[in-house]
């Protein structure tokens, strides 16, 4: 394991922000920590980097216990904070040179790494511009570049796409995907399940300071069973239609929502065939159908009774 988090807890006065969290990340893996705001993700990251003192538990990075050998442990990690932690008055190169020095780099090696990471994040042409002249997305990319300078064993990213425009978000996700494909271990926290699902091979779902489920995406989907969600837009809702649909054995649940008829079923194709037959009987026109396979949102809903963004 490149990163081991063992029984980590953190209490602020009476409130337990993190409660006995344990997980391990293997070399080359992309591990996602998925949970809503306030679930304890950032507190966990804070403890992994020694920014917060754990109430109990320990963190071991590449074999170095964080408490006993903080400098060695921290040297193995790259930190991408949630906010842009850069100096706006300095240029991208000046910022990266400074952060490189804080990780013990210097001389020609530092200059070379600065050029390389700027290339990785696609900002070589803006090397000499001050950060204050950058767009939000570009700042985020430099924020990531600063964490890559010292070629860390594991890159830990704390919600790196918050408040980013879709184009920059895609660029960041693609960059992280490529870094992982190149062998870099990633720990990625987010409340966007699509991001975690896109990037991560293994995911821990965190809520109220506890990991409530952990596994690969297929493993997590199995928690809720093979359920699909069908959203149908129809021309009208005549009396008796909902009752008839409820009577169909192919469907699990039926509800009339603002989006249309929302149906869950074990087999989406069989369910759709049965529903179209009933709609024809009632002379109701089917305008659109949207079929959603079970996702992490559904898993979270299943486990907590709340949506991820609640």
């Amino acid at each position, binding site marked *: 394991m490149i990163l081991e988090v063992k029984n980590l807890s953190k209490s602020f006065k009476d409130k337990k922000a993190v409660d006995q969290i344990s997980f391990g990340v293997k070399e080359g893996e992309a591990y996602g920590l998925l949970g809503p705001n306030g679930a304890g993700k950032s507190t966990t990251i804070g403890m992994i980097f020694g*920014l917060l*003192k754990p109430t109990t538990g320990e963190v071991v990075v590449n074999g170095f216990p964080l408490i006993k050998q903080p*400098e060695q442990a*921290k*040297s193995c990690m790259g930190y991408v904070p949630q906010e842009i932690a*850069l*100096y706006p*008055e300095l240029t991208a190169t*000046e910022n990266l040179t400074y952060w490189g020095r804080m990780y*013990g780099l210097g001389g020609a090696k530092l200059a070379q790494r600065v050029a390389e990471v700027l290339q990785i994040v696609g900002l070589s042409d803006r090397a000499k511009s001050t950060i204050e002249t950058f767009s939000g997305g570009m700042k985020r990319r430099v924020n990531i570049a600063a964490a890559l300078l010292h070629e860390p064993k594991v890159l830990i990213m704390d919600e790196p796409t918050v408040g980013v425009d879709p184009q920059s978000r895609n660029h960041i996700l693609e960059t992280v995907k490529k870094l992982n494909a190149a062998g870099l271990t990633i720990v990625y926290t987010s409340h966007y399940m699509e991001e975690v699902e896109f990037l991560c091979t293994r995911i821990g779902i965190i809520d109220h300071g506890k990991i409530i489920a952990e596994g690969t995406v297929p493993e997590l989907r199995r928690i809720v069973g093979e359920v699909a969600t069908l959203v149908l837009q129809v021309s009208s809702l005549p009396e008796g239609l909902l009752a008839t649909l409820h009577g169909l054995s192919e469907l699990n649940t039926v509800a009339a929502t603002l989006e249309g008829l929302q149906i869950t079923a074990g087999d989406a194709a069989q369910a759709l065939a049965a529903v179209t037959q009933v709609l024809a009987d009632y002379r109701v026109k089917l305008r659109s159908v949207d079929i959603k396979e079970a996702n992490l949102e559904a898993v979270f809903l299943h486990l907590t009774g709340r949506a991820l963004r609640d």
Partner: protein
Amino acid sequence: MKALHIAIKDLLITLRDWQGMLIFLVMPMVLTAILGAAMNSNFTDAPSLGQFEMALIDEDDGELAVALRAVLDTPLLKSLIRVIEMTEAEAIDRIAAGKLQVALVVPQGFTSSVYAGNDASLMVLKEAGSSLRPMVVQGIANSFVEYVSAGRIAASLAVRQAMLGSSNIDPMQTAGHIVEQLHALILQFREEVAEPHRSLISAFQYYAAAMAVMFMMSAGGVGLESIAVEKRNLTWERLMASPTSPVYMILGKFLTVLLVNSLQFMVLMLGTTLLYKVSWGDNMLMVVAAGVCYAVAVSGLSLLVAALLPLSKAGLGVWEIGVQACAALGGSMVPLIIFPKVLQQMARLSPNFWGIRMFTALMGGETLQLTHVLPLLAIGTVALCIGAGHLVFKQRSA
């Protein structure tokens, strides 16, 4: 090395803030010009002050009054003050008629009072509305009394020690010994005043030093603000996440203020030398070393305040209030010589006092002494240790 890199980065950011630099560099130059010009004609510079008359009213007729006359007869004071002896009534009449600005009264029993170990003082009578010439006379009177009182205490202690050791001491002989000691001290005082290499400084020189120490102290806020901004921008958090020891982080901030302050001092020194022909002393290396010593005190205090106060606008406000209070108390705004005695003693609490004292001594032709730099280095080191200790403890227990 990491501490130095932190400081260099901060210096770069500070230098790019041209508005801040304008305040730190241009304002002291402007204020030196205004205050220097306003006070120049009446300051302690002997030629510009001009020789003036002072009435000496000797109601004591004792040995110390004679000693005071001898002090006033030294070439330097003689070139500044023309002493005319008269009675108190005559002096009051002449002051009332506007024919005399200042009179120095040696009260009856002054000598015996000093010898008896009681508090004694010389009195200055002055014309209403005039302040600078009486200020000079008051300064001389205070120094004289301070000198003879200090001598008396030292001599008394020496005698007491001797008496404890032997019961055969003749009190008359002891009294004679005390007087002998006082004579030696008076002679020393007279020599010091008359010392040929020690010149009085001009108003421009005084205010160049006074404004430099005040604005260097103000620039100490750079350290506070830099930590506050880093905490707000989360670069402090990022630094903590890196393999950089908290000790280096704090040392880096100390060096930041030290670099900014030292640079600021050099610019102010060069600026006042070129623009106002201010002489900071004969040995430039000593002057620069003095500037760095003062910067050490400011840097330490800046870090101490950063450790103890919340790093918010309120915290920075407290620093600015402290800067103004130290400036007022330490003689950056008005020369200390016109302060009451109690305030003159309290001024020692302000780094400005020690800074001005050190720079004016160099301007007056003295060399840099340990007594000049030690108080400042002590302030800086003690403040750094307390501040750093507190910050590291806070960080580790987060």
